[in-house]
């Protein structure tokens, strides 16, 4: 029996080697670099916790973390709420062909590379883009603006792109969860005189606890660790109003050449993500047992 167990590990060795080389090693090196002042090429100096101290004193770095939390609103809250609503609607019309079409259309953003999505949206949201043309068409010229170039709207605009990408994912996950719910429950509820709202609140929502947990986890990570959408749409501008930790790490490492500081921010981001995600995991798991 023992021997069999070791044989099992042997099969996992190739994967483990890859994992150790390309995931664990970089992760650990990042932690190590975070204690140094290093430009990536020359000699490095040990600075202890100096880089971490700067995280809390540098207002620009701190602001980028706040922006990431603001993005959670768009990347998590909206997609999950909207996903619930859409999934419930699709389930209601499950027999019609419209349901398949709706599912495909909603999931499409997941298939499109984020970079392409970012470019597409930056056209839509430009001063001459579709968004402004629609506003003008209905007489709201006063609202038109360069959405991604305006200090007040740039971050929400980036958030909308993220919401658009993630709604489909959430819808599909929730829809899959709904199909597992025993139809007898709904029947019983209906016999007891429950309307659609009551059905949704008392049966659908509690049964989807785990799926919602997965959705929230995935989208919160996407919000906190966002990079590609922001990089393509605004590059952190205008005036740092859309700067997020992911982008800041990239600028620190490749433009300011402060590999140590970039690593410290990366480690802090990992801790932050875990601190946000672990409670969600716990909350959604406990209830299911």
């Amino acid at each position: 029996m023992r021997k069999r167990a070791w044989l099992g590990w042997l099969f996992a060795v190739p994967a483990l080697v890859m994992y150790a080389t390309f995931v664990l090693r970089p992760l650990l090196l990042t932690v190590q670099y975070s204690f140094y002042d290093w430009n990536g090429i020359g000699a490095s100096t040990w600075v202890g916790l100096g880089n971490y101290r700067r995280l809390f004193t540098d207002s620009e770095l701190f602001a980028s973390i706040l922006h990431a939390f603001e993005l959670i609103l768009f990347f998590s809250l909206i997609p999950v709420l909207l996903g619930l609503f859409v999934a419930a609607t699709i389930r209601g019309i499950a027999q019609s062909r419209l349901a398949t079409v709706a599912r495909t259309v909603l999931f499409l953003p997941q298939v499109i590379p984020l970079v392409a999505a970012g470019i597409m949206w930056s056209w839509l949201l430009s001063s001459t883009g579709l968004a402004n043309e629609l506003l003008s068409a209905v007489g709201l010229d006063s609202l038109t603006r360069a959405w991604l170039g305006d200090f007040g709207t740039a971050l929400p605009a980036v958030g909308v792109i993220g919401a658009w990408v993630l709604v489909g994912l959430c819808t599909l996950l929730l829809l899959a969860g709904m199909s597992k719910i025993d139809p007898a429950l709904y029947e019983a509820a209906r016999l007891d005189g429950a309307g659609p709202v009551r059905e949704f609140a008392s049966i659908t929502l509690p049964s989807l606890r785990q799926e919602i947990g997965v959705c929230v986890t995935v989208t919160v990570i996407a919000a906190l660790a966002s990079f590609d959408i922001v990089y393509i749409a605004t590059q952190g501008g205008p005036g740092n109003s859309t700067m997020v930790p992911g982008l800041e790490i990239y600028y620190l490492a490749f433009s300011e050449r402060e590999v140590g500081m970039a690593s410290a921010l990366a480690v802090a981001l990992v801790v932050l993500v875990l601190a946000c995600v672990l409670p969600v995991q716990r909350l959604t798991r406990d209830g299911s047992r």
Partner: protein
Amino acid sequence: MGHGPLTSRFVRAALASSAVVAVAACSAPGGSSGTDNANASAAPVTSATCGTEPITLKGYFETGFPLPKELSTEFSKQFPNVKFDIREDQFAVITQNAPRVLADDPPDLMRLPQVSELVKDGLLKNLDGYAQVFGWDKWPASQLEQMRVSSTGERGDGPLYAMGLNFSMTGVFYNKKLAAQAGMTSPPATLAEFDTVLQKAKDAGITPINQFNGGATGGLAFPLQNLMSVYGEPGPINEWIYQKSGATIDTPSNLKAVQHLEKWIKAGYLAPDINSQDYATMMSRFIGGKNLFIFDGDWESGNLDKQMAGNVGFFLMPPLESGGKRAAMSAPLTYGISSKAKNADCAAFFLNWVAIDQKAREIAVKVGGSHPMGPADAYMPPVQQGTVTASTLAAGADIAKDNGAMDFIANATGAIYAKSWTPQLQKLAAGQQTPDALLESVQKDYESQVKK
């Protein structure tokens, strides 16, 4: 109750990682000293050629600029034993990759970003030996000044670490048709006249200026630096860019320049959506006749002569008083040789050929649109009169006469453009920053970056 699998897995991983970190931390990252070659004097060179044996030069060029490729093709025609192995990337990518590529995958010829940090790390070859052999030291000194780096990291003098394929000139491009509509019959001779034209254009319903200022590229730095040279001298600006000790950008004359730019913004002389525009958007709108002026460089001359034939003009930023001295951003299209390059001699021979060969100089002007490097009395290819290429080349002569060449304020340090000028100028454009706080903030960032 409680610990889900993810939690316990995380705890185990954290324990394991801290153990490995303890081990890994024994050796600090990076070389013990990266400055092996940095400040060593150049090895004496007696001759540098490409020989007669087959040889392949490894090049790392900038995407979207056909000049180096055309030059290398012509070079291979004249010297058939030399082949090129060329890799191309966008300039932003080259900027980020430069240190790593120069260290790990050393090219013989590479398009370079700002050089001072690369020199500090000992990544670039000291070209003084070649300069002597080829006589580069007898060219007008201003051509090579920006590529000299002293042992303390200041630019402007010291050994030569890079070479230009040509040198560019910046100023104001205008749409001739729209200029006529705005009542501009000849380029403005003073800043006040320029202001008047801007107002007239606005009154005529024309967008006076459009300039890219979105993302990480604050293009307002172009008009700003032009205004700085109107209100002040190019000398102190260059000293700041070259990181001379004690240099500051936060001066009274520069403050007047930022205030003037703010006046333009508040008067509505700039397109309202500049903060969302990248360079390509600015170019396509200007070519499409959507605005009167852009602040740009002669690397677009060839392109504009093709796409707006006969409808595009160029002038240098007008001085405060008529006939006053003028200045412009002017920088060599910098190429360097890795300190670990295999074919440094041949690469240096190529760089010299670019400056002295008649055919190469013709390519530099026709394809690059800018003035070739080389001795002051070297062959100048004929340019068609009335083209914007002719105007920008002539402007180069004016700047040389007024001794008004400046490097670009975005080149002062590796990060000053993306992390200081750009966000600050975006804030200024949105009315969220005051001129004095802008300069103060850039100077603060500059000092912390130079210290390193």
